[in-house]
């Protein structure tokens, strides 16, 4: 597993962000400094597992390592705490996708490094509409 992915695995596996202990602002990915009040006091916190689709796009040509998954739907999801997260939306027919649709976080394979390499896991979303 790439070292950068390994370092961030809790972000990808558990949607682990952080919260400012001064003003309660929440961030994903985690922030080093609260962008609202400037505090450097932030604690780890898991993000909510539900939200709604703000916008999405459909990729019919995909990058290397994602072949076979096309078409891929990438969306911006606003979680129930207001934080916006970029992620893949799966298990949803293209004609059922709608802006405003409720989604739930799921744990999925992101990509395989062929049959001999490593498997990268992480979060995606599935639509509830």
């Amino acid at each position, binding site marked *: 597993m790439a070292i950068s992915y390994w370092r961030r695995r809790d972000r990808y*596996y*558990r949607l682990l962000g952080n919260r400012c202990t001064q003003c309660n602002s929440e961030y994903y990915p985690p922030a080093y400094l609260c962008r609202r009040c400037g505090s450097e006091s932030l604690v780890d916190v898991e993000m909510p597992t539900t939200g709604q689709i703000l916008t999405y796009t459909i990729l019919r040509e995909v990058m290397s390592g994602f*072949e*076979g*998954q096309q078409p891929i739907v990438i969306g911006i999801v606003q979680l129930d705490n207001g934080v916006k997260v970029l992620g893949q939306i799966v*298990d949803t027919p293209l004609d059922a996708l709608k802006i405003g649709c409720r989604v739930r976080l799921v*744990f999925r394979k*992101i990509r395989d490094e062929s049959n001999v390499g490593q*498997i990268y*896991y992480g979060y995606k979303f599935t639509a509830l509409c």
Partner: protein
Amino acid sequence: MGSNPAMKTPKDAAIAGYGVYIPRYRLPSEEVARIWRGGEEAPLIKKAVAALDEDITTMAVEAARRALKMAEVKELGAIFVGTETKPYAVKPTSTIVAQALAQHKVLASDLEFACKAGTEALQLILALIGSGMIESGLAIGVDTAQGRPGDDLEFTAASAAAAYILSKRDGDSIAVVEGASSYVSDTTDFWRRAGQPYPRHLSRFTGEPAYFHHIQSAVKNLFAEFGYKPSDFKYAVFHQPNPRFPVEVALRLGFNLEQIKPGLLNPYVGNPYAANSLLGLAAVLDEAHVNDLILLCSFGSGAGSDALSIRVLDGVEVKRRKAQNKVMDMLKAAVDIDYATYAKLRGKIVG
């Protein structure tokens, strides 16, 4: 065999929560028959098919998160994943599950015994709690079962996960294992050699000398050791590789169809191997009442069976109301697919 001492199950360890995950897609058996059997009549099964980005790790995590939510347990002492379809031949799935659950101070391991690895995991967690080594543990049965294209197994080989949290018994516990009896022999009915993608089976051996002999032996031993009779049980859940075997073994052992119907999921899910009987148990726990007695009997090729008698406890109704994870709800969310989509999702054709 019946003269051996009974297995002593701990009375202070109980099921605290359970969770299942069944993938959304279903392949009707008529589709397999259309492609490989010239459209001849097929058993009425719709098997659960994992998506392209699902494997036993992702399904185990989904089921485990639901079980943890129901159990309201914060810390686990052990995580065992029973499966025969590990994505890595060397690298544990249980550690990935542990990372995804933020549980690090755990004994973690993967277990293999064909379709009965899930009930093995459950019994080992029970033993660890009963011995006082841990307070709570997670047992998972999960598989993305594959059948060689055109083989009989392709009609049923399915994907799903079932997870159980076991803890020290308290007023919120869901069920307790009253008795257990296991029975094994070297019977090569179904196997997969290392490095091979699909299992092989000796058709004639899968029935009488394997499935029926081991299940009947384990259940009869359980009855002899603990003094049970079929009418003591409100429900019975047998391993269900196809729709016919569990019905036949139930009738042979003196059970009736009413006792097995609530846990008989094969027509709606297929055979998700290590998740099979544990999924049936979850469906039964979804509707059981306090003090009901449940018989659970797994079967794993190679071969062996674990027979367990499980008593439903006071916590079942409150915990069930809190959990949003009924087996029936997952069955209702199913979407039928054709053989071409199945071939893509299971990696039989690659773009």
